[in-house]
């Protein structure tokens, strides 16, 4: 923070600094911290026992389980994809590299609803692959595979986006040195590249997990909303809300909020590591 002193000009600038900090803090408290706090306030508005009963309801537990399973499948695949994409783009030169980078980012700007629609048009009973899936007795939509696929779409860029800039910045010298020393590809990756990117990789995985756990719109299109079967935690929040059980909805929402907070804590720790 060597620059800090710069803006400390005499007189009004001090006041300006205080004003800006005050503004930033109060806006953030109202705009971001309050919604966060409100979730817990509502979830516990009828006391611990009601809260515990809501969380321990078998349907809520199942939603938690389904969401966990989805994340467990999606995140490792996404990590593998992120590493592969970053390795290909950062360590090699080939035509169309820029297009590839843009393609990786497509899911970021597409509405998850659109992603869900795409999948339904492809895998639905009346979709392009529908008849074939039907003939082979394969269920993709309204079942776990559909939920997993849409979540993979939505989270695709997360790991690649974190790892890619780092790999690019680190260049290829270390790896090339390893090659001249006779290391094979796997050895280069595990001994040279991985140690350099591990914190960014974990960081990307954490963000990816948070997103995978929280996906709503896309999953909503392909889920079929079967209670205790294809109802993920965010969908369960909506379902409880429509069951006229607002406190239950906030209780389910509080579990998602806790996951988000844990993810942020892990991220803060990782950022410290990344910097250090």
């Amino acid at each position, binding site marked *: 923070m060597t620059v800090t002193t710069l803006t400390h000009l005499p007189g009004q600038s001090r006041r300006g600094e205080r004003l800006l900090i005050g503004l930033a803090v109060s806006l953030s408290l109202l705009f971001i911290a309050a919604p966060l706090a409100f979730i817990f306030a509502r979830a516990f508005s009828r006391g611990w026992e009601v809260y515990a009963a809501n969380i321990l309801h078998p349907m809520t537990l199942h939603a938690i*389980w389904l969401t966990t399973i989805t994340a467990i499948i999606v995140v490792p695949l996404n990590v593998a994809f992120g590493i592969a994409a970053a390795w290909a783009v950062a360590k090699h030169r080939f035509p169309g590299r820029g297009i590839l980078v843009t393609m990786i980012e497509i899911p970021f700007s597409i509405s998850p609803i659109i992603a869900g629609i795409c999948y339904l048009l492809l895998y639905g009973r009346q979709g392009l692959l529908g008849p074939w899936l039907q003939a082979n007795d394969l269920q993709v939509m309204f079942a776990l595979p559909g939920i997993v696929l849409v979540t993979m779409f939505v989270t695709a860029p997360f790991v690649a986006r974190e790892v890619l800039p780092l790999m690019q910045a680190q260049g290829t010298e270390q790896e090339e040195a390893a090659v001249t020393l006779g290391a094979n590809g796997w050895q280069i990756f595990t001994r040279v590249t991985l140690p350099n990117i591990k914190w960014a990789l974990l960081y990307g995985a954490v963000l990816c997990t948070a997103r995978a756990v929280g996906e709503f719109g896309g999953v909503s299109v392909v889920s079929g909303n079967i209670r*205790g079967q294809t109802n993920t935690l965010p969908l369960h929040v909506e379902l409880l809300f429509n069951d006229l059980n607002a406190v239950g909805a906030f209780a389910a929402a509080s579990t998602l909020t806790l996951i988000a907070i844990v993810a942020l804590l892990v991220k803060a720790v990782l950022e410290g590591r990344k910097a250090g």
Partner: protein
Amino acid sequence: MTIPFIRTALVAAALAASPAAAQDSLLNTSYDVARELFEALNPVFADHWQETTGRTITIDMSHGGSSRQARAILEGLRADIVTFNQETDIDVLAAGGLLSADWRDALPNGASPWYSLPAFLVRDGNPLNIQDWDDLARADVSVIFPNPRTSGNARYTYLAAFAYALEQNDGDEDAAEAFVRAIFDNVPVFDTGGRGATQTFAERNIGDVLVTFEAETGGIAAAYADQGLERITPSVSLFAAFPVAVVSEVAERNGTSELATAYLEWLYTEDAQRIVAQNYYRVADEGVSAEFADQLPDVRLVTVDDVFGGWDAIQENHFAEGARLDNVFVNQ
């Protein structure tokens, strides 16, 4: 707290991970406002099934607008049984080859174990004095009901209003259409399911009157007792049958045909009918009907067959593309 938590989590995990248990689980795909009804029915049936066969079962539920659900099944949602609020939505499944076209003959009362009717729910004290269908067409009244393209509930509302207007206008269909259109013009939002419409009315405080099944108005008035919402029964309404069927293609594949049929047959028993009546539905069982007579006001009911000449004619004259519903539902 931790041990029961772990145990329930394990049970939940087992349920998710083992399609092998499919034999003893049933997916009931139902209409939107039936949430509380099946919440009450299913555990009782599960006990009954355990007593008679010694087997434990789980019944999974999916709720949404009835037509939306039918189309989700056409898209591959593997429902063993459907409990809908409109016969055409089951006919759609029959046309798609998922069940037999004569499904109505499989169970008593044309396969409808209970019925209801479109009725009104108004704000505390009925400030706009809404009593009958013609009040819904008044310019100062804001009306809430769901989207007739996705919700059977809303199509009954459309048909009931149409039937009322036919009576008022000596059977002049164009005049009736104009009347219904005036009502539709008073609707600010069409949710995709009946419960969404209820949320709009009760939670979001939008609209002066909610038109939905009498069963829902009863349940909601009770659930939102603090708002003082009042139930209003119009002078005439439409007999709304709630048909049920086994989706035979899916049930055969899942090996659940026997269980599915038993479940639907059980819905006609006195025990089940009492639970249904407790949820403000009207039932065929006379003994049970008498028990709940005071929560169900007298109303003159007309039927789809009497007024419109059956569902096929309705489909052709009203719901087909470019038919009367399209003329009325212009705000879409």
